[in-house]
């Protein structure tokens, strides 16, 4: 007994943020009960847009899962909607009868999406965009080529439309006015946005008023006031939100548009606090998280009985979360009487900037295409800074104030300490810099974990990365990430590699003993890494440890979701022959391979093979001259080529032969992560060489060598390394580059992040400037290849590692009876 009882109604972003703040200030003050109408813990609602677009998974957006509540002794009633507040008895009651008494009550019921009152608005397939349930409904209805109609061309509508488009739907956005996002954008920016979205495939019906939604049981179409009818399999209403005040109103609390609160976030009943979108403060309601988080701070301060904080309203800025579109808007972006506008428009680069000034102070801002200075303008706006002195340079951004700017790092360097970097979580530059220096942070993930910056909508990620680069300076580029390899040790990847080299450690147990591993035999993270480091360091000498390899590399085939495997034979440079194709076809037929697929890497995948059958298939493939394609390994994968000068009317060199030569040179090598190569016959680059780890582009005078590309999760185009004349030179660079990467990258680091870590200048110095060093690297690669180029399939087809492919025992029915 004794502790006061706090009840929270609505476990969304504002309410839960208040609890988090409160627990920091006064962890034990209350016995806390939380009611949430949704059947989940608390999640980051903002990120529903990327979830809809398939760019994030639901698990990734959870903020407080059930364990979080349990660990803090908080009672969570999820899936229970509170329907009554008995203020006299101080009890809340949920629809299912659950009751909870309170001493203090916090309302954070958010808002409700507006549904326009037209016939058919209750048909199946008509949804709003507010919670996980809505997103699940949309994903279920989405399908290649089906029609979606999104009503509302505001922030939410456009994010919904973009998400559905990414899911393959044919999407039409309907807007009542002639301008998208009219609450944030002026005509020019809105037109640029519309054009960019149209280029991506969205369709627009501007100035169209919805009259009816058509269909019997399910939605089939939409009719507009002008008589036009269009087909629809899904209709998303995104026309606005209204504060969810029903519960408060019924309890007799004073409400207008929202629940009216004072500067201490109290309602007219001083025991009852309210925060979030349901709230109306000084006549204003908010629909973005930044102001709600400010409210949460204030409410927590009072609930914790400190009682000093006051909420005085917020200025808000908006960003659109559509990948590849940068848009920022804040304040009075239209301007009017008594204001003047500064404009910068560069149609070719797709950049538009507008600053609205009143009395030499920024009062509004719209940025399109280049939003990096948004934080700075917003800061000047909040501070009411007189900008007359910098007026001439203002539009070119902060970096141009001093000398000529050098990109993002200089720009963040110039920001004052109290400039807000992360708008969602209200984290300033000073806080981030302090966290980086005091806590020794090196990565974006670490900054996210420690400061929450960049962990909500993610649009400030570039700024945070620039701050990291600026704060760590040279260190950021050169210093090894000081992170331990995994929880089994305190040593970093680099320290472990050095210990292996310097102390001639030649087995995993030796390394673990020498470096005093904290676990008896490591884990699934460090064992494969150690195995690789040893393979790389002691070619021909180290005896590979199959039990420390991930199953794919142990079985030399890719495990599939159903436990079967896939087989991808090597097809040198992607060039094949009728005889080879026939051999593959026969193998597939003979062994009843369920699926045969051309891969994205110019070769053929036999999918769905039971493990026991692998050696037999490999034996047949080997007989036809095939070797393993290593499609399963942290190893050299493919060398993609184009037809080049052999056939192509634009080809300048024989790119196919070049590719085959590179593949013969590099196949079989184990590497820190997978490695892909590409050779194109001319700068049209049909082999996509500039997103490969090692890419070669033929030109009239020879070959251009590019490195560090990646086409995966985070696309990165290559950096140009050097131009050479002959195929032999390309081979030497290739061998040297691969060896440098093999010797120095961390396990599971692809060439793209590796080069970003060590810097292109370093790679160029080791490979281009240091000719002797390059030769030595290439020689070490070739030496290592003497031992590595043994076809693992042929070995296994002949009986090696037989136990891997056979059950220990097959128990028949009678044996067990």
């Amino acid at each position, binding site marked *: 007994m004794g502790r006061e009882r706090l009840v929270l109604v609505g476990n969304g972003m504002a309410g839960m943020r208040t609890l988090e703040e409160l627990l920091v200030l006064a962890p034990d003050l209350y016995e806390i009960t939380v009611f949430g109408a949704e059947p989940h813990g608390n999640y980051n609602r903002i990120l529903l847009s990327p979830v809809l677009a398939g760019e994030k998974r639901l698990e990734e957006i959870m903020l407080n899962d059930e364990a979080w509540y349990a660990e803090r002794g908080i009672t969570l009633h999820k899936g229970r909607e509170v329907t009554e507040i008995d203020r006299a008895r101080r009890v809340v009651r949920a629809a299912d009868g659950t009751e909870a008494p309170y001493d203090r009550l916090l309302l954070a019921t958010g808002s409700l999406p507006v549904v326009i009152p037209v016939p058919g608005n209750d048909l199946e397939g008509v949804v709003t965009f507010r919670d996980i349930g809505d997103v699940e409904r949309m994903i279920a209805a989405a399908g290649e080529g089906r029609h979606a109609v999104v009503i509302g061309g505001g922030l939410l509508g456009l994010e919904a439309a973009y998400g559905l488009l990414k899911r393959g739907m044919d999407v039409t956005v309907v807007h009542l006015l002639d301008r998208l996002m009219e609450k944030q954008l002026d005509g020019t920016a809105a037109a640029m946005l519309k054009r960019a979205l149209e280029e991506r495939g969205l369709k627009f019906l501007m100035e169209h008023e919805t009259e009816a939604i058509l269909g019997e049981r399910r939605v089939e179409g939409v009719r507009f006031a002008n008589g036009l009818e269009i087909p629809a399999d899904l209709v998303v209403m995104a026309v606005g939100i209204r504060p969810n005040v029903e519960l408060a109103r019924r309890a007799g609390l004073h409400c207008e548009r929202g629940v009216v609160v004072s500067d201490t976030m109290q309602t007219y009943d001083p025991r009852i606090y309210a925060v979030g979108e349901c709230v109306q403060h000084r006549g204003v309601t908010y629909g973005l998280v930044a102001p709600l988080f400010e409210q949460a701070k204030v409410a927590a301060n009072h609930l914790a009985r400190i009682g000093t904080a006051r909420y005085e309203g917020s200025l808000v800025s908006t960003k659109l979360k559509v990948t590849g579109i940068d848009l920022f808007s804040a304040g009075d972006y239209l301007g009017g009487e008594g204001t003047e506008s500064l404009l910068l428009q560069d149609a070719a680069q797709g950049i538009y900037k507008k600053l609205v000034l009143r009395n030499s102070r920024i009062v509004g801002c719209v940025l399109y295409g280049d939003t990096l200075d948004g934080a700075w303008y917003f800061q000047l706006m909040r501070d009411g800074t007189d900008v007359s002195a910098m007026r001439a340079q203002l539009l070119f951004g902060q970096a141009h104030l001093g000398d000529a700017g050098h990109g993002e790092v200089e720009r963040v360097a110039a920001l004052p300490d109290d400039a807000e970097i992360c708008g969602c979580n209200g984290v300033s530059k000073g806080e981030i810099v302090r966290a980086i220096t005091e806590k020794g942070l090196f990565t974006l993930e670490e900054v996210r974990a420690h400061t929450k910056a960049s962990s909500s909508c993610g649009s400030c990620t570039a700024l945070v990365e620039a701050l990291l680069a600026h704060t760590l300076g040279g260190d950021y580029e050169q210093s090894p990430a000081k992170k331990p390899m995994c929880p089994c040790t305190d040593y970093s990847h680099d320290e472990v590699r050095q210990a292996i080299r310097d102390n001639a450690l030649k087995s995993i147990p030796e390394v673990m003993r020498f470096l005093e591993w904290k676990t008896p035999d490591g884990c699934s993270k460090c064992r494969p890494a150690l195995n690789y480091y040893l393979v790389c360091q002691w070619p021909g000498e180290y005896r590979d440890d199959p039990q420390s390899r991930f*199953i794919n590399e142990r079985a030399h085939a890719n495990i599939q979701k159903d436990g079967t495997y896939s087989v991808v034979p090597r097809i040198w440079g992607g060039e094949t022959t009728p005889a080879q194709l026939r051999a593959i076809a026969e193998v597939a037929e003979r062994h009843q391979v369920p699926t045969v697929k051309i891969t994205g890497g110019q070769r053929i995948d036999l999918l769905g093979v039971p493990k026991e059958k692998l050696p037999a298939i490999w034996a047949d493939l080997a007989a036809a001259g095939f070797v393993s394609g290593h499609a399963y390994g942290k190893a050299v994968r493919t060398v993609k080529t184009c037809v080049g000068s052999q056939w192509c009317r634009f080809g300048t060199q024989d790119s196919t032969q070049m590719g085959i030569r590179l593949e013969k040179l590099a196949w079989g090598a184990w590497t820190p992560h997978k490695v892909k190569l590409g050779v194109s016959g001319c700068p049209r680059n049909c082999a996509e060489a500039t997103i490969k780890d090692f890419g070669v582009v033929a030109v009239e005078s020879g070959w251009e060598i590019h490195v560090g590309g990646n086409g995966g999760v985070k696309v990165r185009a290559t950096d140009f390394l050097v131009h050479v004349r002959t195929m032999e030179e390309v081979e030497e660079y290739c061998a040297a580059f691969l060896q440098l990467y093999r010797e120095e990258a961390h396990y599971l680091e692809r060439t793209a992040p590796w080069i970003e870590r060590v810097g292109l200048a370093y790679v160029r110095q080791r490979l281009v400037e240091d000719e002797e060093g390059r030769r030595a690297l290439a020689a070490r690669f070739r030496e290592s290849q003497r031992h590595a180029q043994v076809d693992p399939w042929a070995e296994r087809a002949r009986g090696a590692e037989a136990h891997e492919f056979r059950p220990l025992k097959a128990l028949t029915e009678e044996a067990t009876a």
Partner: protein
Amino acid sequence: MSGAQAMRERAGESWIEVGRLEDIPRRGARVVKAPDGDIAVFRTADDEVYALRDRCPHRGGPLSQGIVHDRKVACPLHDWKIHLDSGEAVAPDEGCTATFPVRVEDGVVYLRLEPRGCEEG
């Protein structure tokens, strides 16, 4: 082995011989194909032997194919870690997979087809 052991055997609960300890790689596993589905028989670095239904509680991944460390196995599909002795997933993941009684005598591994610990589903 103990008298109790022998008594249970006599009582008709059958231990089935499935192979030799040395047939299972240290820090590895082999599969026993049984009428109700595969069973993974693990051997740790210290030669302890455990048997689990060869299905990860997450999405059914074949645990026999995972990396074995300490008394745990990392599922090959999404890297959940499963305790070999209890069949429970290592927190924060939740779920469990059935265990089977195993013993080793004179280098021979015996198994009983009696799932324990978790609902088989």
